[in-house]
């Protein structure tokens, strides 16, 4: 019963270790991949809260480390957060955990109803991410369908999700913003490579404004992968897909 043994031990910041098995001071590691929107959202969360962490870059997909496979045997994927030696996988689960352990600069509002709205949109956007990327690696009619689908998805996100707010989280960046954030550093390069632009000031004015606000935020601005590096990476990925198509 570890929790009982450490119940009243003071940490170096004179914080009483309560019933929880970790304090804010335990060592934090993040296994990620530089281009992945899923690990980037975790980086943003940690940076917004000023949490120190060690970042381990994984060579995805062909050369995953033994440690990653040990820490995430179920999915064998990044991101994995390891706090005081204990691993957590799945980025949305990680974000909720981070918000609970480091409650300052909250990613979720205080009100239970508002929290449910934030979680709904974080989940909705998260589930639409791979569908939104379909236009990038599909061809012909399938690609057309994917493009049309994107307009539908973005319309729903703009009208029902963002509405007239500055951020999904209101005045501050919240969990749903971190999930939608992939549009600025991953989706935008995809659009450039394919020559299709979805979020424009005349098509989705509110999402367009959101992109500006989000990317100008000091923490976000300093923590996005190099745009041209992502373009190269995506082009490389397309080459592989094309080669596979040709058999």
């Amino acid at each position, binding site marked *: 019963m570890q*929790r009982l043994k450490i119940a009243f031990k003071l940490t170096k910041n004179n914080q009483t270790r309560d*019933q*929880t*098995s*970790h304090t804010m001071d335990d060592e934090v590691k993040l296994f990620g991949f530089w281009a992945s929107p899923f690990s980037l959202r975790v980086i943003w969360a940690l940076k917004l809260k000023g949490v120190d962490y060690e970042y381990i870059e994984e060579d995805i997909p062909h050369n995953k480390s033994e440690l990653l496979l040990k820490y995430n045997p*179920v999915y064998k994927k990044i991101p994995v957060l390891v*706090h005081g030696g*204990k691993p*957590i*996988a*799945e980025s*949305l*689960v*990680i974000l*909720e*955990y981070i918000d*609970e*352990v480091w409650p300052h600069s909250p990613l979720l509002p205080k009100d*239970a*109803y508002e*929290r*449910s*709205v934030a*979680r*709904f949109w974080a*989940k*909705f956007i998260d589930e639409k991410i791979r569908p939104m990327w379909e236009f990038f690696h599909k061809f012909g009619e399938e690609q057309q369908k994917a493009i049309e689908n994107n307009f539908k998805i973005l319309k*729903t996100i703009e009208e*029902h999700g963002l509405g007239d707010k500055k951020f999904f989280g209101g005045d501050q960046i919240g969990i749903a913003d971190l999930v939608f954030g992939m549009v600025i550093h991953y989706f935008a390069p995809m659009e450039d490579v394919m020559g299709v632009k979805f979020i424009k000031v005349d098509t989705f004015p509110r999402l367009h404004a959101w992109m500006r606000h989000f990317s100008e935020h000091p923490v976000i601005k300093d923590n996005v992968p190099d745009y041209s590096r992502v373009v190269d990476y995506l082009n490389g990925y397309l080459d592989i897909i094309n080669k596979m198509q040709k058999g």
Partner: protein
Amino acid sequence: MGEVKVLGSWSSPYGLRVQWALGLKSVEYEYIDEDLLNKSQMLLKYNPVHKKIPVLVHNGKPIAESAVILEYIEETWPQQHPLLPKDPYERAMVRFWINFLDNKDKVAPFITFFIGVGEEHKKAVNEAKELLKLYEEQVLGEKKYFGGEEIGMLDLAMGWMAYFGVIEEIVDVKILDAETFPRLHAWIQNFRAHPVIKKNLPDHDRLLQNYTEKRQRFLAYSPHTENA
């Protein structure tokens, strides 16, 4: 604490999770059964994005997505029968497994078990058994419930297993048997016996009839039917 409504469907495990959670916390609510082939205006108004059940409406404000609803219920009525552990790491583990089992890929084998045939069905049986093995050995382990000594959020999410026996009856194939999965089998008995759960389980005969018809419809239109 204000008016609570649940829009659900009599046999949906996602809707039942919400009813079970409210029942465990002794929260009174009005239940509205939706005919999913004829969705009400109310449902379309309260869940315009997905148009699905369950929806919880609390003081006129709607919440959709069962996992989101469960978190809301836990936060709004925290004192009675807590559904999540206190420790953030353990809470993360619960959320991880709910996310895992709700994933389309993890649900698919059980659906194919129900309506698939031939090779597809064989494959689904194997995949389903692997998942059940994972749930039995790694997720439930030696515990009485997934939540430990008491039913927790993960038990509610696993609740579909509590009446999976009817599916097996209809398909005439048993995969969740007591010999192969003794712990899951024991869990099912305990879960079904809990007074709150017992009060809200779909009627066996109704399930049998309704799901037999459903399966027949799928098989009749399936391109894979061996008899076609």
